[in-house]
């Protein structure tokens, strides 16, 4: 066995998994709090990618793209702010009026919203693939073997570190702050939380905003990492991130991250050692297996059926 190759796939998988994990958090938080699949979340991620691309182009036009850290921070900040407003708006328009209504209605509304956003971006920004020049080049050669060098690029380091930092920040937010308490309270019993003075509407809105902000970070990292985006990237990434959320145990934040990493690793190893064409099949295959043997996911709690 070639360890260098293995290590390289491991690095690639972790990078990919970090991106999936960030998107998956949005799914898992929304599902936890209002029990619906936010189907438009993938599109939010796509819009985040577009925001960061356009911010970069504006920086370039303004002539400050030479100062790399400033550009990156601006991209991160602008994309997070503007994209979270999309998350807020989607909840306000398509989900809030349907809250407490018939379950499938919210799902159809979400699918409609997803189609709408996809086509909205397609019309306003064009259907063609948008290229972006690499901003961060180079990397560390970790290991040299006879026919293969293991590369850990700076971009990959940034992705993994940034994801880790965001994870820590958000876990603290959920675990320690009053906002997090309100969220957990709404998750358990919305009516009761409302009676005890938690502003339920605002808490749910905040959840959507947080999910969208994380998805936009994922969008920005994909833009930088792969260098190409188009209006269609949201669908597959969204489905895989949801798979990751289910795999990790829906409703659980660390579960979403773990699920994302696992999906990323499965994808990387499958394309590295087997066929690249069937990597999506592998992902879904794993999902089916997990759901059959452990329907509550890896880190979730089994639900007790109440009569």
């Amino acid at each position, binding site marked *: 066995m070639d360890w260098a190759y293995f290590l390289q796939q491991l690095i690639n998988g972790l990078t990919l998994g970090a991106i999936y994990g960030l998107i998956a958090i949005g799914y898992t938080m929304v*599902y936890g709090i209002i029990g619906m*699949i936010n189907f438009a979340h993938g599109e939010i991620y796509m*819009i985040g990618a*577009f*925001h960061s*691309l*356009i911010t970069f*182009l*504006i920086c370039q*036009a303004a002539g400050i793209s030479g100062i790399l850290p400033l550009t990156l921070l601006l991209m991160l900040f*602008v994309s997070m702010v*503007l994209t979270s*407003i*999309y998350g807020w*708006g989607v909840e306000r*328009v*398509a989900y809030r009026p*349907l809250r407490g209504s018939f379950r*499938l*209605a*919210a*799902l*159809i*509304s979400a*699918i*409609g*919203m997803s*189609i*709408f*956003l996809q*086509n*909205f971006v397609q*019309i*306003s*920004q*064009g259907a*063609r693939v*948008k*290229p*972006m*020049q690499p901003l961060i080049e180079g990397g560390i050669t970790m290991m040299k073997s006879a026919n293969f060098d293991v590369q850990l690029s700076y971009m990959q380091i940034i992705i993994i570190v940034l994801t880790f930092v965001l994870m820590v920040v958000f876990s603290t937010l959920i675990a320690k702050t009053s906002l997090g308490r309100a969220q957990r309270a709404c998750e358990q019993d919305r009516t009761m939380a409302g009676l005890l003075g938690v502003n339920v509407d605002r808490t749910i809105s905040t959840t959507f905003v947080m999910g969208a902000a994380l998805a936009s970070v994922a969008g920005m990292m994909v833009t930088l990492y792969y260098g190409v985006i188009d209006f269609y990237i949201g*669908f597959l990434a969204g*489905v895989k991130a*949801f*798979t990751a959320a*289910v795999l990790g145990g829906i409703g659980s934040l660390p579960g979403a991250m773990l699920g994302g990493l696992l999906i990323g690793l499965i994808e990387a190893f499958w394309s590295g050692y087997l*066929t690249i*064409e*069937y990597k*999506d*099949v592998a*992902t*879904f295959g794993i*999902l*089916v297996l997990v*759901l*059959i043997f452990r*329907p509550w996911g890896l880190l979730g709690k089994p639900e007790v*059926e109440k*009569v």
Partner: protein
Amino acid sequence: MSSAFASSRTSGSEIVKELAFFAVIALLMSVMILGVETVDRPTGLELAVRWDLVLIAIGSTVIGRLALIVRREGISRLVQALMITLAAVCVFEMFVRFRDMDDRWASPVVLDMAVGSFTSIVVTVCFLAIVFAIAYFSMKEKSAVVVDESTKISSKIQVAYRSNTKKIGLIGIIFFFIFPLIFGENRSAIDLATLVMIYIMLGWGLNIVVGLAGLLDLGYVAFYAVGAYSYALLSQNFDLSFWLCLPLAGIFAASFGIVLGFPVLRLRGDYLAIVTLGFGEIIRVILINWYDLTGGPDGISSIERPSFFGLAEFSRRVPEGSIGFGDLMGIEYSSMHRLIFLYYLILILALVTNFVTMRLRKLPIGRAWEALREDEIACRSLGINPTNTKLSAFAIGAMFGGFAGAFFATRQGFISPESFTFLESAVILAIVVMGGMGSQIGVVLAAVVMIGFPEMFRELAEYRMLIFGAGMVAIMLWRPRGLLSFRDPTILLNMSKKEKVAGEAK
């Protein structure tokens, strides 16, 4: 909104604050996605600023919000309708400007139209009048009495609809049967009707799974694909005729349903949805990559067209040993014959689907589906095997999907994985849910609305899917339980159907 708050009016400064808030939101949402266009240049991406679109977006948001405020404050619906019309004009202007607007300083297109030629004035006025009328009549005056009356009217319609379901169905069937007689020469009308009929059939098939058994299936298109490919492959590789392949396609799809359903049907609700979605994608990925069998992304072309029940052919040049349809009937050859025949074929297939569903509902298995939908735990305690019951619904739904797929393949003559994307599944599910789950006539209505209307506005191709998505959201907000939304069990204890109808109308 409850009437208790009707008297407390919001002060002017609060309204201004609210409007300013939404203006800022609109600005932030549109500033990049709308306001800046990325243009491909040989040197890389460049930017083009479209400040006018941002302005219009803010304007329409503020006006729309103002309409909502007016409504909330209970001001006359004339003002509300005017606001909505104005907002619609803004949105229209935005769409026009998307397309071909090099000069950002150009005067509004709507104004140009309104002062243009006589016809353009007429068109503009008509458009505004229609929007205004819709807005005016869909608004309710904010008064408790009127609200009561309108619910009374809608429940009257419900009673009328429910006590005449059979008549409405019969009228519908007669209409669809004489449709080719009316539009016999109009090729595009027949094509459109055939397409709508395919979706009606798919909707009815999925209705068994989603509407009756309550299983959320996001991958129904997989069975459609299995049906289409099994007909295409059987006819190309083994030279089997359409009439032999049609049942085979159904059987293949049904066995696929069983194979897929067996492991996953123990899952509940959303998990089932995501797994079926996954299976839909897996089938598509396999179709794309199994090049030797399916032709990969190129698909399968020149699939055999159906004959007239094996008796006659529809083509102009009749092959040796068989006769043409025109000769058989003693009429002149026309290329429309095949289209009309295909139309009747799918009509009958769809009606068979409907008939079987209606009968199955009355069988023990159908009762078990509905019972399972209502309460799974109670069913289990009564000795119904949930997995087998669900599996049967899944398999029967899949079978009809397979029939529809085989028909699709023979009608198109060409299939590729492109036709079986997730979007198709979403559309079929939307038809079922929008129709009002479990309602057979609702499916017809939703299919006509969802497939018929967008196809008629082909010229708006770019905006078609955009409007489609927005329409899905709008219909759900307006009627969350679907257009014809009555989802009650077929039978209830100690209650005749008439009493039940009367009881619910109260």
